[in-house]
Protein backbone atom coordinates (compact mmCIF):
# COMPACT_ATOMS: atom_id res chain seq x y z
CA UNK A 1 0.00 0.00 0.00
CA UNK A 2 1.09 3.53 -0.65
CA UNK A 3 2.53 5.38 2.33
CA UNK A 4 4.51 8.43 3.32
CA UNK A 5 7.05 8.66 6.12
CA UNK A 6 8.29 11.85 7.70
CA UNK A 7 11.04 10.73 10.07
CA UNK A 8 11.36 14.02 11.95
CA UNK A 9 8.47 14.85 14.26
CA UNK A 10 9.93 18.15 15.40
CA UNK A 11 12.75 20.35 14.08
CA UNK A 12 14.14 23.61 15.43
CA UNK A 13 16.28 25.92 13.31
CA UNK A 14 17.62 29.41 13.78
CA UNK A 15 16.24 32.22 11.69
CA UNK A 16 18.38 32.62 8.59
CA UNK A 17 19.63 29.04 8.68
CA UNK A 18 18.94 26.53 5.96
CA UNK A 19 16.22 23.92 6.30
CA UNK A 20 15.65 20.42 5.01
CA UNK A 21 12.58 18.37 5.90
CA UNK A 22 12.67 14.72 4.99
CA UNK A 23 9.98 12.72 3.24
CA UNK A 24 10.11 9.12 2.05
CA UNK A 25 7.33 7.47 0.10
CA UNK A 26 6.30 3.99 -0.82
CA UNK A 27 4.63 3.71 -4.22
CA UNK A 28 4.97 1.26 -7.08
CA UNK A 29 4.85 3.68 -10.00
CA UNK A 30 5.92 7.27 -10.50
CA UNK A 31 4.21 9.12 -7.69
CA UNK A 32 2.47 12.43 -7.56
CA UNK A 33 4.03 14.14 -4.54
CA UNK A 34 3.09 17.23 -2.58
CA UNK A 35 4.26 19.35 0.31
CA UNK A 36 1.66 21.23 2.34
CA UNK A 37 2.08 23.69 5.20
CA UNK A 38 -0.37 24.16 8.04
CA UNK A 39 -0.31 27.10 10.44
CA UNK A 40 -1.89 26.56 13.87
CA UNK A 41 -5.64 26.11 13.65
CA UNK A 42 -5.66 26.54 9.90
CA UNK A 43 -6.21 24.43 6.82
CA UNK A 44 -3.45 23.17 4.56
CA UNK A 45 -1.75 25.30 1.94
CA UNK A 46 0.05 23.72 -0.98
CA UNK A 47 3.75 24.64 -1.16
CA UNK A 48 4.71 22.65 -4.23
CA UNK A 49 4.00 19.50 -6.20
CA UNK A 50 5.79 17.00 -8.40
CA UNK A 51 4.08 15.11 -11.17
CA UNK A 52 6.84 14.51 -13.72
CA UNK A 53 9.75 16.21 -15.50
CA UNK A 54 12.39 18.24 -13.71
CA UNK A 55 13.10 16.58 -10.39
CA UNK A 56 13.85 19.88 -8.67
CA UNK A 57 10.58 21.65 -8.04
CA UNK A 58 10.18 25.27 -7.01
CA UNK A 59 7.31 26.29 -4.79
CA UNK A 60 5.91 29.27 -3.01
CA UNK A 61 7.55 31.16 -0.14
CA UNK A 62 11.04 30.26 -1.36
CA UNK A 63 10.68 26.50 -0.86
CA UNK A 64 11.95 23.82 -3.19
CA UNK A 65 11.92 20.03 -3.18
CA UNK A 66 13.88 17.40 -5.00
CA UNK A 67 12.44 14.10 -6.17
CA UNK A 68 14.95 11.27 -5.93
CA UNK A 69 13.55 8.03 -7.27
CA UNK A 70 16.58 5.97 -6.20
CA UNK A 71 16.03 7.02 -2.59
CA UNK A 72 12.22 7.19 -2.70
CA UNK A 73 12.52 10.65 -1.25
CA UNK A 74 11.02 14.08 -1.78
CA UNK A 75 12.79 16.36 0.70
CA UNK A 76 11.74 19.95 1.20
CA UNK A 77 14.39 22.65 1.42
CA UNK A 78 14.71 26.35 2.03
CA UNK A 79 18.05 28.19 2.00
CA UNK A 80 17.16 30.77 4.64
CA UNK A 81 14.32 30.29 7.12
CA UNK A 82 12.13 33.17 8.29
CA UNK A 83 10.31 33.29 11.62
CA UNK A 84 7.01 33.16 9.73
CA UNK A 85 7.93 29.69 8.41
CA UNK A 86 7.19 28.18 11.82
CA UNK A 87 4.35 25.74 11.13
CA UNK A 88 3.66 22.09 10.52
CA UNK A 89 4.70 20.61 7.21
CA UNK A 90 3.08 17.60 5.59
CA UNK A 91 4.34 15.49 2.74
CA UNK A 92 1.68 13.68 0.72
CA UNK A 93 1.39 11.22 -2.15
CA UNK A 94 -1.55 10.62 -4.42
CA UNK A 95 -2.77 7.06 -4.45
CA UNK A 96 -3.68 6.79 -8.12
CA UNK A 97 -6.14 4.26 -9.32
CA UNK A 98 -9.89 4.22 -9.36
CA UNK A 99 -9.74 7.28 -7.15
CA UNK A 100 -7.08 9.91 -6.63
CA UNK A 101 -6.60 9.94 -2.89
CA UNK A 102 -4.08 12.07 -1.01
CA UNK A 103 -2.18 10.09 1.63
CA UNK A 104 -0.39 12.22 4.19
CA UNK A 105 2.63 11.71 6.37
CA UNK A 106 2.43 12.42 10.08
CA UNK A 107 3.95 15.86 9.69
CA UNK A 108 7.04 17.72 10.88
CA UNK A 109 6.60 20.61 13.27
CA UNK A 110 9.08 23.39 12.54
CA UNK A 111 10.10 25.85 15.23
CA UNK A 112 12.23 28.88 14.34
CA UNK A 113 14.53 30.43 16.92
CA UNK A 114 15.33 34.14 16.70
Amino acid at each position, binding site marked *: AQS*VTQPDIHITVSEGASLELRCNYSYGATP*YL*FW*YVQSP*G*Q*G*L*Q*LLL*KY*FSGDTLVQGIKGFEAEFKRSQSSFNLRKPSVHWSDAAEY*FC*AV*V*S*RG*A*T*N*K*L*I*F*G*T*GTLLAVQP
Partner: protein
Amino acid sequence: EAEVAQSPRYKITEKSQAVAFWCDPISGHATLYWYRQILGQGPELLVQFQDESVVDDSQLPKDRFSAERLKGVDSTLKIQPAELGDSAMYLCASSLDEGRGFFGPGTRLTVL
Protein backbone atom coordinates in the same frame (compact mmCIF):
# COMPACT_ATOMS: atom_id res chain seq x y z
CA GLU B 1 -8.19 33.37 -5.57
CA ALA B 2 -11.17 31.08 -5.07
CA GLU B 3 -11.27 29.25 -1.75
CA VAL B 4 -12.99 26.32 -0.13
CA ALA B 5 -15.44 27.50 2.51
CA GLN B 6 -16.24 25.57 5.68
CA SER B 7 -18.55 26.25 8.59
CA PRO B 8 -18.60 26.38 11.48
CA ARG B 9 -14.94 27.02 12.24
CA TYR B 10 -15.32 25.75 15.76
CA LYS B 11 -17.86 23.43 17.36
CA ILE B 12 -18.14 22.27 20.93
CA THR B 13 -20.66 19.58 21.71
CA GLU B 14 -21.43 16.99 24.33
CA LYS B 15 -21.07 13.32 23.61
CA SER B 16 -24.14 11.62 22.20
CA GLN B 17 -25.22 14.83 20.48
CA ALA B 18 -25.43 15.26 16.72
CA VAL B 19 -23.13 17.62 14.82
CA ALA B 20 -22.96 18.69 11.20
CA PHE B 21 -20.28 20.40 9.16
CA TRP B 22 -20.71 22.18 5.85
CA CYS B 23 -18.31 22.60 2.95
CA ASP B 24 -18.58 24.66 -0.21
CA PRO B 25 -15.85 23.68 -2.68
CA ILE B 26 -14.25 25.82 -5.35
CA SER B 27 -16.65 26.31 -8.21
CA GLY B 28 -16.21 23.71 -10.90
CA HIS B 29 -14.30 21.23 -8.77
CA ALA B 30 -15.90 17.84 -9.26
CA THR B 31 -13.94 16.06 -6.55
CA LEU B 32 -14.60 16.80 -2.89
CA TYR B 33 -12.85 15.24 0.09
CA TRP B 34 -13.51 15.17 3.81
CA TYR B 35 -10.47 14.54 5.99
CA ARG B 36 -10.15 14.09 9.74
CA GLN B 37 -6.99 15.32 11.44
CA ILE B 38 -6.38 14.22 14.99
CA LEU B 39 -4.00 16.46 16.93
CA GLY B 40 -0.41 15.57 16.14
CA GLN B 41 -1.26 13.45 13.13
CA GLY B 42 -1.62 13.91 9.40
CA PRO B 43 -5.04 14.19 7.78
CA GLU B 44 -6.85 10.94 7.09
CA LEU B 45 -9.39 10.63 4.31
CA LEU B 46 -12.94 9.94 5.49
CA VAL B 47 -14.88 10.21 2.25
CA GLN B 48 -14.34 11.25 -1.35
CA PHE B 49 -17.01 12.41 -3.78
CA GLN B 50 -16.90 12.63 -7.54
CA ASP B 51 -19.75 15.00 -8.32
CA GLU B 52 -22.61 13.66 -6.19
CA SER B 53 -21.32 10.09 -5.97
CA VAL B 54 -19.24 8.59 -3.20
CA VAL B 55 -16.10 7.01 -4.68
CA ASP B 56 -14.28 6.16 -1.45
CA ASP B 57 -15.71 5.92 2.04
CA SER B 58 -13.65 2.99 3.23
CA GLN B 59 -12.41 4.90 6.31
CA LEU B 60 -15.73 6.46 7.24
CA PRO B 61 -17.22 5.04 10.47
CA LYS B 62 -20.60 4.45 8.90
CA ASP B 63 -22.35 3.57 12.13
CA ARG B 64 -22.17 7.20 13.21
CA PHE B 65 -20.83 9.26 10.30
CA SER B 66 -22.68 10.20 7.14
CA ALA B 67 -21.82 12.48 4.25
CA GLU B 68 -23.79 13.80 1.34
CA ARG B 69 -23.30 15.98 -1.69
CA LEU B 70 -26.78 16.05 -3.10
CA LYS B 71 -26.34 18.34 -6.10
CA GLY B 72 -22.68 17.72 -6.62
CA VAL B 73 -21.72 21.09 -5.21
CA ASP B 74 -21.65 21.69 -1.46
CA SER B 75 -21.42 18.89 1.06
CA THR B 76 -22.42 18.07 4.62
CA LEU B 77 -20.68 15.72 7.03
CA LYS B 78 -22.69 14.55 10.01
CA ILE B 79 -21.82 12.71 13.18
CA GLN B 80 -24.55 11.13 15.28
CA PRO B 81 -23.96 10.43 18.08
CA ALA B 82 -20.67 12.19 18.72
CA GLU B 83 -18.10 10.42 20.86
CA LEU B 84 -15.13 11.77 22.79
CA GLY B 85 -12.73 10.27 20.24
CA ASP B 86 -14.28 12.33 17.47
CA SER B 87 -12.56 15.46 18.73
CA ALA B 88 -10.42 16.54 15.80
CA MET B 89 -10.07 18.99 12.95
CA TYR B 90 -12.34 18.18 10.02
CA LEU B 91 -10.93 19.40 6.73
CA CYS B 92 -12.69 19.71 3.42
CA ALA B 93 -10.80 19.87 0.15
CA SER B 94 -11.76 20.07 -3.49
CA SER B 95 -9.89 19.20 -6.63
CA LEU B 96 -10.12 19.30 -10.39
CA ASP B 97 -8.00 16.23 -11.00
CA GLU B 98 -4.80 14.40 -10.08
CA GLY B 99 -5.55 14.55 -6.37
CA ARG B 100 -4.18 18.03 -5.83
CA GLY B 101 -6.44 19.29 -3.09
CA PHE B 102 -7.36 22.85 -2.23
CA PHE B 103 -8.15 22.84 1.47
CA GLY B 104 -10.62 24.86 3.47
CA PRO B 105 -9.80 26.31 6.91
CA GLY B 106 -11.30 23.32 8.71
CA THR B 107 -13.77 22.83 11.54
CA ARG B 108 -12.31 22.19 14.97
CA LEU B 109 -14.63 19.81 16.86
CA THR B 110 -14.41 19.33 20.60
CA VAL B 111 -16.58 16.66 22.18
CA LEU B 112 -17.04 16.96 25.96
